[in-house]
């Protein structure tokens, strides 16, 4: 039963301590240390300096054609991924196949994105697999067929791991925002050196927006959490999005923002062409950029509010935009008229 109350999850604006793998530079620590000594009056300045920063790369993409490979290749480098370290490493590509339907391709990640990403990571010497645990359907083979994914995966000889049914390992809940003690993670996820969250950019009728952070709901196995993954709903959607992201820190994002969804997403919304790819090594920064492109206030998206300055930055000032400038590319995505979504528009 989905009954989130986003108003219960007001972003904690006082939190500035970076967590979960984000590192302060020596310079920021030194600056922060001396400023802190100057007293509480300087706290806003201190916070601005020591809070984490990240980059988000933005590229135009007219469609799902051969140019995607070059876009992803250049974008991943521009986003700061240390590609030389990928040789021999295992990379798990995680598209969104929540409830695929041939007649609604704007609901799920386009297979061309996955094929292009696989080609790029393989060119850097990585071992690439694709994994997903569809949230609403138990017949994963059907999800692959309806999502147009089965044939390309077969053609490219890409192994697919059904994350709903994979063997699991237990991981303690390091995020501690929900009441869950820990998570059962598929072995394929726990053992991957790098997980690439590859969502379709969509509006979401509970959270406002779904992109790379929420996409990680799909790494949790349905066998343990159900169809839908109702355990997570009961523990709080924003809190569990945060905790799952904290549990798998070795993530980057490639967002399919070419043919998107607006309105009643993540399932029943309508197509909206944006023609972009968003890439980054910090998921909150990527998702906050996605929000700006949809004219949504990232701070009002409950899980981004929680993640801000803990898992990564969402403030525009702390996200270095690379590639295209987002401002002229932003479009006002339709959001359903519901009380819990009315604060999503920027002031």
């Amino acid at each position, binding site marked *: 039963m989905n009954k989130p109350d986003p108003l219960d999850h007001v972003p904690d604006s006082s939190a500035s301590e970076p967590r979960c793998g984000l590192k302060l530079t020596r310079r920021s620590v030194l600056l922060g240390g001396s400023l802190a000594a100057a007293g509480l009056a300087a706290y806003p300045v201190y916070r601005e300096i020591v809070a984490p920063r990240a980059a988000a790369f933005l590229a135009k993409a007219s469609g799902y054609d051969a140019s995607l490979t070059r876009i992803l290749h250049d974008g991943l480098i521009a986003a700061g991924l240390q590609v030389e370290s990928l040789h021999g490493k295992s990379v798990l590509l995680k598209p969104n196949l929540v409830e695929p339907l041939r007649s609604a391709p704007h609901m799920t990640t386009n297979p061309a994105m996955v094929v292009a990403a696989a080609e790029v990571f393989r060119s850097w010497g990585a071992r690439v697999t694709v994994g997903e645990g569809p949230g609403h359907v138990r017949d994963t083979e059907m999800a692959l067929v309806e999502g147009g994914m089965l044939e390309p995966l077969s053609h490219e000889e890409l192994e697919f791991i*059904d994350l709903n049914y994979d063997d699991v390992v237990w991981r303690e809940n390091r995020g501690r925002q929900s009441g869950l003690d820990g998570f059962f993670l598929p072995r394929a996820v726990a053992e991957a050196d790098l997980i690439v969250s590859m969502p379709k950019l969509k509006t979401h009728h509970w959270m406002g927006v779904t992109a790379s952070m929420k996409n990680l709901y799909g790494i949790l196995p349905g066998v343990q959490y159900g169809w839908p993954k109702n355990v997570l709903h009961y523990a709080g959607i924003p809190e569990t999005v945060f905790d799952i992201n904290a549990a798998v820190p070795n993530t980057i994002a490639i967002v399919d923002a070419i043919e998107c969804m607006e309105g009643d997403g993540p399932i029943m919304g309508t197509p909206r062409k944006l023609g972009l790819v968003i890439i980054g090594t910090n998921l909150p920064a990527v998702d906050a950029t996605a929000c700006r492109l949809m004219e949504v206030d990232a701070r009002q998206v409950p899980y981004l509010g929680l993640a801000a300055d803990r898992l990564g930055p969402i403030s525009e000032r702390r996200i270095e935009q690379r590639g295209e400038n987002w401002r002229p590319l932003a479009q006002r995505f339709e959001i*359903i008229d519901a009380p819990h979504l009315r604060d999503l528009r920027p002031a």
Partner: protein
Amino acid sequence: MAWWDRPLQELASEPCCGYRHGSSIAAEPTSMAAIALSSRSNWESARRAADWLASHQAADGSVAVREGASWPVWTTPLAVLAWQSLASHDKTLYRSNVERASRWILQARSESAPESGITGHDTRLTAWPWVVGTHAWVEPTAMAVLALKSCGYAKHARTREAVRLLVDRLLPEGGCNYGNTTVLGRMLRPHVQPTGLAVLALAGEPDAKGAIARSADYLSRNVSGETTAQSLAWALIGLTAHGRRPAEADQWLHDMSTRQSPFDGGQLRNAVLLLAAQENDCLLINLPRK
């Protein structure tokens, strides 16, 4: 050589199985293996699967999803059906296991909620969840209904309420999904696999408003030789239980058995295809008619 000889042979050689080849033993594929092997009178292999389920049963009667796990236990009804499938061979087998598991099912209950208008279904009804402490959904409820009916609890108040819940979760035009009809006023889409399981559990139930028949209609319209293995199997089992088995069913199953798929469906795929090949002599199909 019939098409089912190869999957039957594979299943008989590995009746205690996981979701993928080489993965840890799990209760769902092992239960379905036991039922499929029983339906083919392969009692020895069926007993190996049923014995594993018995060894995996917890003191409270529940059966967890896989070896080494203590929760979740939504697989308990499937274990009951597996043990019950051997009763036609020997009525004395697994009686204590069935009794303890059915007692557990009867006391387990999903979380209900007051009507809010957010979702279209009646949130006050209770049945069975995937995970204890959460809401009721179509598939675990259908599994529990089938298990309780197999134990003679068809008229039990819990079974009756669960049947009401399943009917309530059917979409107006027929079919169902995981268990939501509308969310925030928007009608959702049906899917074949959960609809197959739901109509199987509802076979033989009164249908004054035609909701069950419309869901069987939905299955008839949406199953074909192109349907993937799990969905095809559950659609055929459901339709067969309603006496509406498509004329092309055997050809579809034959074609499916020879189709190469890069998707590893494990032994569960073999088990459900074997069950779908049964027009009768199968606990799942005969059960609702009793």
